[in-house]
């Protein structure tokens, strides 16, 4: 486990390419334990690549990535199980029910399955818990995916547009699990500029895979962020 004073994420000149195409280059930052990094950028700016590297799903090709006290990729084994990833895909089996999916993930993470109904109730999904995920709306599937991401009480949350498809009621229901007060350090990709800034301690703006903006949230205006999309 990372010490309380050790940064949750430390990146130095981080880069990643897909073949000839550079997806991410020269990202350097430090995110304190319990703090929130908001990542902004247009489509294809490298946000999801950054998240997948932090989740140990992609290897960095250049620079250094240290997550929860472990250098990636060699220390990836010690990071797995300590990060919670909410990606574009919900990472749920469509033919299994919400309950079956979460019990499966609980077993993979060595977590008591008894935690599952309480989580589902918290996000208002207990009534649909036994229905196959394929029958759920996108917003409902997103709520189940949030339960999956936090099921094992991760120390670092990696959230890609966590409130996508959620109505205001659902967004309020999931806030204690993935919001600012949830506890773990967070890396949040968002296209909602005002909300993203309000949630953040540190802001990273990416353009073409390179950092175009990196500053404490208090020093960044909504106009600065919108300029990334121009």
């Amino acid at each position, binding site marked *: 486990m990372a010490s309380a004073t050790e940064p949750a994420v430390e990146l130095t000149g981080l880069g990643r390419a897909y073949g000839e195409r550079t997806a991410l280059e020269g990202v350097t930052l430090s995110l304190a334990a319990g703090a929130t990094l908001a990542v902004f950028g247009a489509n294809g700016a490298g946000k999801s690549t950054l998240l997948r590297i932090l989740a140990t799903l992609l290897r960095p090709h250049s620079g250094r990535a240290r997550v929860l006290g472990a250098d990636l990729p060699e220390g990836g084994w010690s990071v797995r199980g300590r990060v919670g990833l909410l*990606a574009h895909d919900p990472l749920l089996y469509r*033919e299994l029910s919400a309950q079956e999916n979460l019990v499966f993930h609980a077993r993979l993470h060595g977590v008591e399955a008894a935690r599952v109904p309480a989580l589902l109730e918290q996000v208002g999904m207990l009534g649909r818990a036994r229905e196959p995920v394929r029958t759920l709306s996108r917003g409902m599937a997103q709520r189940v995916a949030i339960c999956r991401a936090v099921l094992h009480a991760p120390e670092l949350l990696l959230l890609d547009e966590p409130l996508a498809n959620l109505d205001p009621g659902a967004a309020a229901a999931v806030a204690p699990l993935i919001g600012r007060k949830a506890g773990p350090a967070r890396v949040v990709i968002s296209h909602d500029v005002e909300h993203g800034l309000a949630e953040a301690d540190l802001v990273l703006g990416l353009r073409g895979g390179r950092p175009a903006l990196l500053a404490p949230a208090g020093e960044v205006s909504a106009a600065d962020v919108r300029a990334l999309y121009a």
Partner: protein
Amino acid sequence: MALVRKDLALELRTKEAVPAMFLFSVSTFVLFRFGLDRTTLEGDLASGVLWVTLLFAAVLGMNRLFVAEREEGGFDAFLLAPVDRTSLFVAKAAVLFGFLVAVELAAVPVFALLLLGPSPVGALPELLAVLVLADLGIAIVGTLVGALAVQTRARDLIVPLLALPLVTPVVIAAGQATAPLLAEAGAAALPGRWLGVLGLYDLVFGLLALAVFDFLLED
């Protein structure tokens, strides 16, 4: 066990692999019956028809083995968990082995009814031993090939192109071991050396698969 249970639950829900493998086997037996213009087979020919059919049916199962992991994010979810990657190989091989056994429980009696001259009942324990050893080899290689192929766009082509040459020794050994059990003159003694070949194949490819499977999951 969680991985095996999940895959069995998915198969029970979707019925994508085992029914397709069984129906393919029965269709192939019927085609052989008309293609060879024979109502009964025995010995080498019966053994060959049985094993070639079961192998092609197994290819269907290999093709489906990792589809849910690929299309529904199962690989990512697994890689995020603090679980030894080898456990995915062991679980998937166990599931494919289970699929093969389930198909054979139905398909071999159909083969006996449709095509087989001599009754295999007297040689059932020996036949079961051959089936189990051969299924184990097919499951090991099939899991390895399935994991490799699912990362490619041409999955449906890659699986048979890689799997068929790799499991040829299984077909040869299983065919040779089964032929005397299906002889017209009644079941002869099981050739022990062919069982030995199957066992050795399972051991070698099992160790090889355990050694290389981790690398197949790397990005």
